[in-house]
C-alpha cells in the first residue's frame, strides 16, 4: 500500500495498530483483500448485518444496565424505564450476589445493594420482576460467577408465573473467562468455572432452547485495557472454548450456537469501531461455518449487545460524557448492534441517577426516531475507508486468535495470567499516553476547567436501611421454608458437583426450595475450591 509520510503528514496508527491513511481509494480495498467478505445483510458472511432489514423491521433493543439496593427498589426503577420507552432489561446485581455471598455474610458488610440489587433467594426474583411481562420485555442478567444459580432462579421464577420455559427468551452474561481477565467476579478455579458455563449451555439447550445462556464479553476485556481488535479476538477465543466444551457434551453445533450471544464495548475512533463490528460479524460467521461446520445460519450470527463504553468516560466535566455517549450510540447504530446499553454520564464516578438513565435512553431514542439511523442497513458499506479498515481489522483479529491458539489456547492463557498481563501492559501504555497528552481527552488533558467552575457531582447514597431490610427478609424466608427440602437439595448440588454431573437440575431444585445464593455457592465451593488469582506483570 502507498504511504504518504513523504508528504509531511504525520503517520497515524489507530488503537488496533493499523496505519490510517489520509485518503482511501478502491485500490486500498483491493489491496486489503477486496470485497469478498462484504456480501449482503442477512446472508453469509453477515458482515453487513445478521438480518436483511435490520432496524427497518425493528430498532435495536434499548437495555440500560440497572439495579440497586433491593429487589423492590430495582423493580420500581425497571418500571420507570419501561414507562419511558425502554424495551429490555439489563439487571445489575450487587457484589455479594455476584460472587455468591449472602447478604448476612461478613464480607458483604457495606456492599449490600451498593452497585446493584441484592439477591439471596428466589423471593428476590419474584419481587424484582413483579408486574413485568417477560415475553414483552426480555431480561438480561449481568451475572457471571454465580450465573448457574441466578439462571436457575430466573427460570424458576418464570415457571412459577406460568411461562412455558421452553419458549422463554432472555439472556445471562455468564462469561466467566472474561471475569478472570477483567471485572473480577470469579468464584471457582478456571476449569470448574468453564465446566459450569457448559452445564448451563447444555441445560438450556435441552430445557430452555430460546434462552441465551451466555453472552461472551469483549466489553470488559476492553475496559481492562485491550485494544478494539484484541477485544473481539479474545471474545472469540472465549466463545470457542465454551463451544468446544458444549460439543464435548455431545451437543450438535446447531443445537446451541444460535443461542450464543456477545457483548462488546464502544468507545474510541468512530470508524475503527464500526469496522470492528463489521469485521467481527464476518469472522465469527466464518469460524462457525468453517471451523465448526455449522449449517444453520443462525449459528453463524454475531448477535450482540453493544455498550458504550465506561472506560471512555471521565469524571472531569462529566456533562461532556453525555456527548460521548451520543457518539457511542451513533456508532452502535451505524455498526448494526441488535441491542444497546449506554453508560450514563455520571457513571464515571457513581451508579447512575434516574435522570442520567433517562438521558441515555433519550439519546438512543433520538437516534432511532429522528435521525434516520433505522432507515437503511449498514449505511457506511462501500466506503473505501470502511471496507479497507474492515478487512484489516478482521486480519488483525485472526492474527491474535492464531497467537492465542499457538500458545495453548485461552483457558491456559487465562489460568497462567498471560492474557491479564498483556491487557494490563496495554492499559499502562494507554494511561501513560493520556497523562503525557499524546492521546487527547477533552476536559481531561486538554480544554480543562478550573475546579471551582465544575458542578458538585451527585453520588448515589449507600442505603443502610435497605441493606438491613434485605437481611431481615431473608431471615424470615429461612424460617418459613421447608428446611429438610433445602438440605436435601443442597446435598444433591454438592454430590452432582463432585461427581462431575450437570449441576443445573440440582440447582433448580435448590432455588425452588428457597435455598440462598450463598448456600448453593458454598456447596459448589466444597466441590470445586476457590480461584487463586495469578499475580503476573
Amino acid at each position, binding site marked *: 500500500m502507498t504511504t504518504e509520510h513523504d508528504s509531511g503528514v504525520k503517520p497515524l496508527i489507530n488503537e488496533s495498530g493499523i496505519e490510517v491513511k489520509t485518503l482511501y481509494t478502491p485500490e486500498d480495498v483491493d489491496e486489503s483483500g477486496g470485497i469478498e467478505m462484504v456480501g449482503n445483510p442477512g446472508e453469509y458472511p453477515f458482515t453487513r448485518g445478521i438480518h436483511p432489514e435490520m432496524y427497518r423491521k425493528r430498532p435495536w433493543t434499548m437495555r440500560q444496565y440497572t439495579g440497586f439496593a433491593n429487589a423492590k427498589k430495582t423493580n420500581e426503577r425497571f418500571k420507570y424505564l419501561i414507562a419511558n420507552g425502554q424495551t429490555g432489561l439489563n439487571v445489575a446485581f450487587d*457484589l455479594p450476589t455476584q460472587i455468591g455471598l449472602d447478604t448476612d455474610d461478613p464480607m458483604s458488610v457495606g*456492599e449490600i445493594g*451498593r452497585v446493584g440489587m441484592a439477591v439471596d433467594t428466589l423471593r428476590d426474583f419474584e419481587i424484582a420482576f413483579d408486574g413485568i411481562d417477560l415475553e414483552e420485555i426480555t431480561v438480561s442478567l449481568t451475572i457471571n460467577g454465580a450465573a448457574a444459580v441466578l439462571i436457575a432462579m430466573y427460570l424458576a421464577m418464570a415457571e412459577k408465573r406460568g411461562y412455558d420455559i421452553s419458549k422463554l427468551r432472555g439472556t445471562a452474561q455468564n462469561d466467566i473467562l472474561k471475569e478472570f481477565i477483567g471485572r473480577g467476579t470469579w468464584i471457582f478455579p478456571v476449569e470448574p468455572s468453564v465446566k459450569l458455563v457448559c452445564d448451563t449451555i447444555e441445560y438450556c439447550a435441552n430445557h430452555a432452547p430460546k434462552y441465551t445462556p451466555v453472552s461472551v464479553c469483549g466489553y470488559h476485556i476492553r475496559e481492562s485495557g485491550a485494544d478494539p481488535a484484541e477485544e473481539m479476538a479474545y471474545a472469540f477465543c472465549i466463545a470457542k472454548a465454551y463451544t468446544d466444551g458444549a460439543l464435548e457434551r455431545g451437543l450438535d453445533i446447531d443445537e446451541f450456537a444460535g443461542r450464543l450471544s456477545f457483548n462488546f464495548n464502544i468507545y474510541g475512533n468512530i470508524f475503527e469501531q464500526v469496522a470492528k463490528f463489521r469485521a467481527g460479524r464476518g469472522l465469527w460467521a466464518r469460524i462457525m461455518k468453517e471451523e465448526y461446520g455449522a449449517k444453520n445460519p443462525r449459528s453463524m450470527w454475531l448477535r450482540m449487545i453493544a455498550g458504550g463504553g465506561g472506560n471512555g468516560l471521565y469524571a472531569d466535566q462529566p456533562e461532556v460524557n453525555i456527548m460521548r455517549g451520543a457518539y457511542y450510540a451513533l456508532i452502535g447504530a451505524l455498526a448494526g448492534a441488535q441491542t444497546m446499553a449506554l453508560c450514563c454520564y455520571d457513571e464515571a464516578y457513581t451508579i447512575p441517577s434516574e435522570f442520567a438513565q433517562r438521558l441515555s435512553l433519550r439519546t438512543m431514542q433520538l437516534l432511532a426516531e429522528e435521525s434516520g439511523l433505522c432507515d437503511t442497513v449498514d449505511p457506511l458499506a462501500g466506503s473505501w475507508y470502511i471496507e479497507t479498515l474492515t478487512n484489516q481489522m478482521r486480519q488483525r483479529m485472526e492474527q491474535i486468535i492464531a497467537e492465542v491458539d499457538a500458545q495453548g489456547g485461552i483457558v491456559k492463557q487465562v489460568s497462567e495470567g498471560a492474557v491479564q498481563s498483556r491487557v*494490563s501492559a496495554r492499559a499502562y501504555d494507554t494511561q501513560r499516553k493520556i497523562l503525557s497528552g499524546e492521546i487527547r481527552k477533552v476536559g481531561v488533558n486538554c480544554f480543562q476547567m478550573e475546579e471551582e467552575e465544575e458542578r458538585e457531582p451527585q453520588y448515589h447514597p449507600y442505603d443502610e436501611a435497605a441493606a438491613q431490610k434485605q437481611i431481615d427478609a431473608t431471615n424470615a424466608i429461612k424460617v418459613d421454608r421447608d428446611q429438610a427440602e433445602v438440605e436435601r437439595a443442597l446435598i444433591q448440588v454438592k454430590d452432582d458437583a463432585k461427581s462431575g454431573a450437570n449441576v443445573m437440575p440440582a440447582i433448580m431444585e435448590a432455588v425452588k426450595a428457597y435455598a440462598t445464593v450463598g448456600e448453593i455457592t458454598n456447596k459448589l465451593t466444597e466441590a470445586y475450591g476457590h480461584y487463586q488469582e495469578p499475580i503476573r506483570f
Partner: protein
Amino acid sequence: MKSNIRVLVAKPGLDGHDQGAKVVVRALMDAGFEVIYTGLRQSPEAVARIALEEDVDVIGLSSMAGSHMQFCTRLASLLEENKLTDKLWIIGGNIPKRDVAELKTIGLNGIFPTGTHFEEITNFINENVT
C-alpha cells in the same frame, strides 16, 4: 530518601475494577519501588497482615466502587493494633472530593483520584518515606 522502598498495593473489598491498581503497580515498578500486589478481594485484616508480613513502607489501596470509607475506617483500627501507623498510607481511585477531609482524619496520608499523574504518586512516596 530511603532506598528499596517497599509498597503494598491492595484491592480492598469486593470491587473487581483492577485496571487502575495494575497500572499503578507498573508505574511504581518502573519508578524503582519494590511492589507487592495483593490481587482482588482483600479484607482489612488481610491488608494489615500482608503489610506486617511483607514489612512494607507504604500501604496503598485502590478503590473504584465506593466502599472506601467503611473499609478505611476498619483498616485504621487494625493498623493501630498492629503498630503500623508509622507506614505511609495512601489511596487511589474513585474517591469523591467530599471524602478527602474525613479520610485524612482517619489516617490516610495521601489521596490520589483517578487521572493522577504517576510522578505525583512516586514523588509523594519518595518525599514521605523516611
